[in-house]
């Protein structure tokens, strides 16, 4: 673990300037992603997880920006790089698969042109070499090579997303960021996409940051999990341990809000209330207003994300030493 991690965030803050003020959608996020690791980031809509992904790629545009903090990619701070340096790193070092499979491909360029243009922009390759790479990548995602001459509208949603994955991996990046890549797809296709990603990760050895609001997708394939709430990570740990014993009340709530296919029939839980307005977040713990187990101190002091042993981090006063709920 002493080596340089693929990605390390240090106290990253990012958000959007609005007329009413700065909306800090990512508020002091830190984590490490080791080589080949699969990290899942889960949270409700609006918790800042997509902003986080865009910040890592330095894709925040218009009124959005990185406020402070570091994005260390293979040890270099992407947040502090000049634009040309970031552009050289995009797709070669880190690539991204987007939420909307339907609209992520340019309707007026052929699939082949869109696959090869990144190759031609970053590598000193001929058109024929780039096309050979494209054919190989399409093969990896089980799409016939004759689709190269086709256009996006001729593909189904699942095929588009697989083309997108092939496109993201064509330059063999170290890091693949997936921003809710399966949201627009039906459940069966979701499943096949996720299995495909896992298979490719094993074959090619890249690291993955997989962002989703659906924790159930991550159960089997992620190595570690970060749960985000209102711009902060509230719990982090190895997936298995986190699933077996969630520590943060919010994680418990998230896990209670999706059904299992195999387990016993239980009443669905869900979480009361709605996520706080990030323009003026509540004082103290941001989850406290919705937390069934909040006590008098929660509304005053914001709990820090603290190490509670076993590689697990949790930001909840219930887990502080001396509390009844703390880990033994």
């Amino acid at each position: 673990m002493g080596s340089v991690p693929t990605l390390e965030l240090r106290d990253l803050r990012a958000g959007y300037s609005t007329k009413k003020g700065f909306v800090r959608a990512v508020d002091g996020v830190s984590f490490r992603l080791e080589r080949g690791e699969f990290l899942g980031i889960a949270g409700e809509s609006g918790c800042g997880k997509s902003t986080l992904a865009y910040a890592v790629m330095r894709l925040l545009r218009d009124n959005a920006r990185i406020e402070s903090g570091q994005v260390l990619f293979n040890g270099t701070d992407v947040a502090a790089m000049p634009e040309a340096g970031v552009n050289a790193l995009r797709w070669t070092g880190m690539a991204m698969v987007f939420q909307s499979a339907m609209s992520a491909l340019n309707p007026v360029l052929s699939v082949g042109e869109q696959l090869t243009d990144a190759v031609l922009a970053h590598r000193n390759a001929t058109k024929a070499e780039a096309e050979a790479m494209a054919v190989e990548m399409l093969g990896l995602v089980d799409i016939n090579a004759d689709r190269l001459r086709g256009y996006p509208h001729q593909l189904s949603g699942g095929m588009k997303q697989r083309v997108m994955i092939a496109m993201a991996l064509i330059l063999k990046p170290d890091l693949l960021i997936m921003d809710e890549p399966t949201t627009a797809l039906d459940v069966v296709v979701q499943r096949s996409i996720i299995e495909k990603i896992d298979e490719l990760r094993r074959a090619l050895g890249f690291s993955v940051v997989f962002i989703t609001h659906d924790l159930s997708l991550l159960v089997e394939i992620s190595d570690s999990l970060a749960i985000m709430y209102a711009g902060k990570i509230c719990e982090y740990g190895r997936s298995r341990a986190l699933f077996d014993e969630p520590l943060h009340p919010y994680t418990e709530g998230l896990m209670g809000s999706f059904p299992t296919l195999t387990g016993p029939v239980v009443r669905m839980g869900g979480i009361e209330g709605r996520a706080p307005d990030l323009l003026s977040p509540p004082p103290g713990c941001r989850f406290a207003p919705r937390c069934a187990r909040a006590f008098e101190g929660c509304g005053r002091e914001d709990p820090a994300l603290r190490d509670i042993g076993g590689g697990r981090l949790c930001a909840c006063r219930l887990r502080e030493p001396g509390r009844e709920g703390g880990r033994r």
Partner: protein
Amino acid sequence: MKYFLRKLGMLAFTLFVSISINFFIPRLMPGDPARALLDKMEGLPPEQIESVRAAFGLDTGDSLLVQYGKYLGNTLRGDLGVSFSRFPMPVTQVLRIAIPWTIGLLALCMVISFALGTAIGIAAAWKRETRLASFSVGLFSFIRSFPYFWLGLIFIYFFAFRLRLFPIGGAYAVTETRGSAAWWLSVLRHGTLPALTICVSSIGGWMLMMRNNMINVLAEDYITVALAKGLPLRRVKALYAAKNAILPSVTGFAMSLGFVVGGGLLTEMVFSYPGVGYMLYQAVNAKDYPLMQAIFLFIAAAVLVANFIADIAVMILDPRVRDGAA
């Protein structure tokens, strides 16, 4: 290919319809062109009136349907009748004199202002945060609100009348030999003000249209993907943003190419420019029905052909249209 044939069929059909309407509408109007013509010739002996009637083809006792059949046949053969006001010139020959001026001036100006306006629109959307971009939006919105003819009159007043830099009207100097270098130079000098009028008053529309399309397209996910791919910005701008944003403009452009003939009418009148629009104006004044009819037919055909060309251009640019998906 199927799309192409369908559009070609559509073109043929609409042309036929407009030719037919062009036949029936004047016959539904009150008044009689034959009577109007003959009234002008009051005092002529009856046998001469008869020969005039025969010469213009006004002597038929045929039913409307037979007339229609003859008309269709003549139109297909390119025979549109004889001009009243420029007797005995056939209408097609009169038109043939006017069309090059209109095409040369109006169409060329439209192409220039479309190309320029679109290019400025692309730049203004791409760098929309800059002060220059916001200024250009204001400027072009202002310019766009000038009516053609008003701008033309202003230009004539300042550049032709006060400063005497350009001639006030006409298309060429009558004193020069046609085809000589001096004649061509005079054509350029005569064409400058009308050309400026048309370019200035139409460029704003293209600029604003392209800018708005571009801004919408720039918010699309595939633009973010293109940026995430680290593509050269030139490529993102041209092939990801502009190629998508230009599709509605191309359609709009072809439509306006057709209407240019009508819209240019005022400009041509202001500058006494001998194009189709000015000729229509003269034909109306002279109650020259065959000429009017031929000009209407020409305008209708121009709009239809331009639309057809736009459909084909969009087909080339947009693969979804090629597949008949959109």
